[in-house]
């Protein structure tokens, strides 16, 4: 099996851990689809999306994990498929979008709350929050690995400044944002009458 195929399977298995229903046939379709469209970033992304995801509400998690597995977010359409992955499906008018919303975000005069929000959603920090909330140690470990991977090549002399590296790795996962959100949730929880 080719390394990329293994990577796709690993990706699919990780999606499952986030309660996304990924079937065997979905994975098989994905592999076939990749054979058809190749690895050009956008096509690769679109092919995985069309074959693996069967529920639009799963898109934010898909996007977050896609970035972790296959690097930087693809240019163009994918960015617009956003929405908070852990609040469940939002109502129709409000959830993710297919194609071209990125361009839409630049359209003159249309700055809405939703668009402002879409810039921060669908990021790895959401995975971090979920992992913390669910005591998912495996996922935390996994994210830590990814954080280190995100550093790219590390030169021996960089090791002296380990603190800075750790900071950089954390930042690549959206660490601070995750902390903010988690503290926010904690505060809400305390003051909530329930």
């Amino acid at each position, binding site marked *: 099996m080719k390394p990329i195929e293994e990577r796709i399977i690993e990706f699919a298995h990780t999606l499952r851990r986030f309660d996304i229903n990924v079937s065997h046939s979905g994975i098989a379709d994905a592999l076939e689809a990749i054979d058809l469209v190749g690895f050009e970033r956008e096509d690769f992304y679109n092919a995985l999306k069309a074959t693996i995801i069967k529920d639009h509400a799963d898109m934010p998690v898909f996007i977050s994990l896609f970035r972790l597995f296959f690097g930087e977010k693809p240019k163009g359409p994918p960015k617009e498929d956003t929405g908070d992955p852990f609040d469940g499906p939002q109502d129709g008018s409000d959830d993710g979008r297919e194609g071209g919303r990125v361009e839409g975000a630049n359209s003159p005069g*249309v700055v809405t709350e939703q668009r402002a929000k879409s810039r921060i959603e669908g990021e790895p920090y959401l995975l971090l929050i979920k992992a913390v909330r669910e005591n998912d140690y495996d996922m935390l470990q996994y994210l830590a690995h990814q954080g280190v991977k995100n550093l790219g090549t590390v030169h021996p002399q960089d090791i002296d400044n380990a603190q800075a590296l750790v900071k950089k790795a954390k930042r690549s996962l959206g660490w601070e944002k995750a902390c903010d959100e988690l503290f926010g949730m904690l505060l809400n929880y305390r003051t909530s009458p329930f």
Partner: protein
Amino acid sequence: MFSSPDEVLDKFAQVKFIVNRSVATAVFIALKLERPLLVEGPAGVGKTELARVLAETTNSELIRLQCYEGLDESKALYEWNYQKQLLRIYTDKSQNKNWEEIKHTVYSQEFLLERPLLKALMAQQRTVLLIDEVDKSDEEFESFLLEILSDYQISIPELSTITAVHPPMVVLTSNNFRDFGDALKRRCIHLYLDYPSYEQELKILNLKVPGIQLRLAEKIVTYVQAIRQLKLKKAPSIAETLNWAHALLELGEEDIDNEVIKDTAGVLLKYRGDIEQVTSQDAATFFK
């Protein structure tokens, strides 16, 4: 047939159907893997149109099955032409034919009323089978559909088993009226079709309403895109954007202000509450 997502984009554009690459890729994959394409998304974004365009660009016949609650096999697949059979039996009897002979004749293809699914399976060429609003049918029908879409084969007990020589290109649409079964979804390539982006909608508008001033077109699209973000009962579809553009053109309007919107909101919005909500807001705030 298409050889790449780019070709899908091109061919669709030739018939003035503007989609993005994500849509083209899903269509391409579904065709290549011979899987049904499940298209979801809000009303009026062109889900049904996609099937029509697919038929047009592949030179195939479009066979449409509209789903509704209570739709059953006799309406979707086939039915025996009961009246015609009776007539035949009467004539045959008058000629003193025995039942064995009669039975043989009345259960033949001549007396079969083909409904869309059977028609698609028996077609001599590849067709596009549109199963529209599949979420409106009930669960029994859905499992029946799954069976057909798995092996493109059905059995008519009195006649024979029919296997499609040219399995149709299947497009299913859903408005998420009901969350339907995983098994059927698993079978499909999934596509979420949403309202077009600003650029796409502007392109569509220019294509479909030739002669419109660019400045007015931009304003129309900006406005429509903005009110889609509001919590409306029914957000304006692409067709409504086009209707509105036609209306403004007919009225000779060159700009959009509160008065124009008040006069023409009915073209864009179909519910009184929506109209009130939109017209109560100063139009200028949408153009900021």
